[in-house]
């Protein structure tokens, strides 16, 4: 299907062209059924990522920003979690409809995920080297010696000093930044087409965060993979992402190229976020925050979920939930008054 060079055997999956998504989520609904009621965690979320592209999913706590990625990775515990509708396509094939064994292969070799907390993602009773070598032995059929060799190369590639010696250390012997590097090495061992990074630098100090973001963008360029970056940090999005999907109360409320979305927001929530952060480059007189607090996902308001906090809201917003509609090529906003927001912003 494509002339793009690939770094590994692609098996049965067709290789997408640049400009065609490698992973796409369509109209996904996920709910959590608890004794206290049903929480609509994700209410019709769609996004996709192309090879070599970085998509940021931006949202605050409770927005559902991690839920669609968890659905991709099969990490939603059921019960209480249920994917009630929607589809996930990897290289054009429906993942949710595929047999279990195929889903597992995609999740092992096609899409990787890294988390905020590397210590819980690494197994404390095995050495870091063993955990990486294991991947090469199971999935690539390498012998012990060669697997360790490759693991050492990989630790070196992610910037771990004296990588060969550190293969034999346990996760707790690594610092926070080094653990994050080790987790990235594990995630990239099988050269996935898509890497999902869920708040990868939130627990790290700013100087280490900068190192890790540089590493991720370097590796992405080298490997040509799609990167889905889930974060609450607008500056990280501005710095590394190509496109952004802004989430609020389980929905994507605005999406488009980062530069356009951040300089000319078409949804009042995006505009409010931009006005809530003080810039580093100059001193500001006062901030103009969004009023109120995010809604409880168990008791969403009728109409637009953002209406109770919105300065643009009218009666229509409290009756009719706006759909995510195209506002210009490559950009969409879920607001009845997006034109007004753009004029004011």
């Amino acid at each position, binding site marked *: 299907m494509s002339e793009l060079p690939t770094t590994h055997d692609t098996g049965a999956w067709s290789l997408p062209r640049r400009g065609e998504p490698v992973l796409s989520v369509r109209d996904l609904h996920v709910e959590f059924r608890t004794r206290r009621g049903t929480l609509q965690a994700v209410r019709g979320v769609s996004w996709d990522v192309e090879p070599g592209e970085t998509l940021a999913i931006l949202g605050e706590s409770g927005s559902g920003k991690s839920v669609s990625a968890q659905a991709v990775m099969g990490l939603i515990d059921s019960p209480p979690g249920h994917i009630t509708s929607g589809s996930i396509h990897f290289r054009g094939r429906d993942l949710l409809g595929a047999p279990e064994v195929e889903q597992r292969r995609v999740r092992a070799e096609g899409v990787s995920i890294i988390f905020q907390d590397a210590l819980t993602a690494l197994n404390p009773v095995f050495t870091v080297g063993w955990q990486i070598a294991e991947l090469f032995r199971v999935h690539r059929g390498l012998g012990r010696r060669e697997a360790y060799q490759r693991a050492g190369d990989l630790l070196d590639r992610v910037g771990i000093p004296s990588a060969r010696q550190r293969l034999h250390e346990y996760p707790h012997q690594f610092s926070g930044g080094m653990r994050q590097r080790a987790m990235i090495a594990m995630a990239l061992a099988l050269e996935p087409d898509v890497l999902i990074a869920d708040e990868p630098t939130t627990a790290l100090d*700013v*100087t280490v965060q900068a*190192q890790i973001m540089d590493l991720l963008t370097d590796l992405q360029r080298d490997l040509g993979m799609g990167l889905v970056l889930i974060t609450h940090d607008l500056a990280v999005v501005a710095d590394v992402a190509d496109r952004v999907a802004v989430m609020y109360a389980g929905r994507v409320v605005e999406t488009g190229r980062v*530069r356009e979305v951040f300089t000319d927001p078409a949804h009042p929530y995006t505009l409010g976020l931009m006005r*809530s952060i*003080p810039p*580093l480059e100059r001193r500001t007189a*006062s901030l103009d*925050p969004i009023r109120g*607090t995010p809604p409880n996902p168990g008791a969403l308001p009728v109409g637009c979920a953002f209406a109770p906090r919105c300065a643009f809201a009218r009666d229509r917003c409290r009756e009719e939930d706006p759909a995510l509609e195209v506002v210009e090529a490559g950009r969409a906003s879920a607001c009845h008054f997006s034109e007004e927001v753009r004029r004011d912003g």
Partner: protein
Amino acid sequence: MADPSGAGPLLSVRGLTKHFPLTRGVVFQRTIGHVRAVDGIDFDLDPGETLGLVGESGCGKSTAARLLLRLIEPTSGEVRYRGEDLTGMSPRELRQMRRNVQIIFQDPYASLDPRMTVGSIIAEGWEIHPEVMPRGRRKEEVGNLLERVGLERAHADRFPHQFSGGQRQRIGIARALALRPEVLILDEPVSALDVSVQAQVINLLEELQAEYGFAAVFIAHDLSVVRHISDRVAVMYLGKIVEIGDSEAIYERPTHPYTQALLSAVPSADPTVERTTRIRLEGDVPSPASPPSGCSFRTRCWKADERCAAEEPELVDRGGHGHPSACHYAEPADVLGVRRLGS
């Protein structure tokens, strides 16, 4: 001696040091070393001003906050409140001091007693300091405080778990303000909050400071928030202040390589620009249990040489840059300069 005139700094910190012992063994504990959490810091806090204290985890900024109130005992050094040394205070004097110096913690979930109503949490300080508020006016005043921090009078009868993180932080602020303190120590007060709520709390703190006139030590790792709120900024690294000065000077003309690297590491929230300077430090912060000889930053510093390994640089203004910096080779640099990206 106490300074009744009110002239001079409210808080004066000199050589403040806290070394935590590292022990081994369960029954026969022996000390095998010390973590130098705070390693000799000096600064003053003037009435009404806000001093930002920034640094990465493990730099000692939260330990410093606790030392300022003597919530933990310093290893050495002194903290003077209106001229009087906290370390020599009797329990009674200490109580009086703490009426005037209040603290707000990062975690609004852990710092409020879950079994007390919000009203009794806010009024609790008046039990210890009854002179601040006559008994008959307390209920009324709790309501006023709740309204002042953006909550409702009726919330006084509820419990902390019935509130969101941002609301709990407002309760913590009301509790601290109930005693009309002269100094507020804020230890990462907005770090646990979502961006939209964080901005509300920052605005509230600024309004309250204008109204009540307290001085503040604002501890945070978010350099944008610190710039927004602080008059002066102190940058900490491995238990020491490496640079201190007016906010403007620290952000526009930082002279210590660590300050420069720290600022350079923060991405800009404007996607149309790119920083012209890019400093990337290698490695992690060394362990405060075995800091490097000489300058503690030298293991990650691109300017380091033999002198830095041998001789610890003092926090002084070497080249007439206008503010002190603990670097032998202090030199101002504009690290926040940007260039506009083409489309």
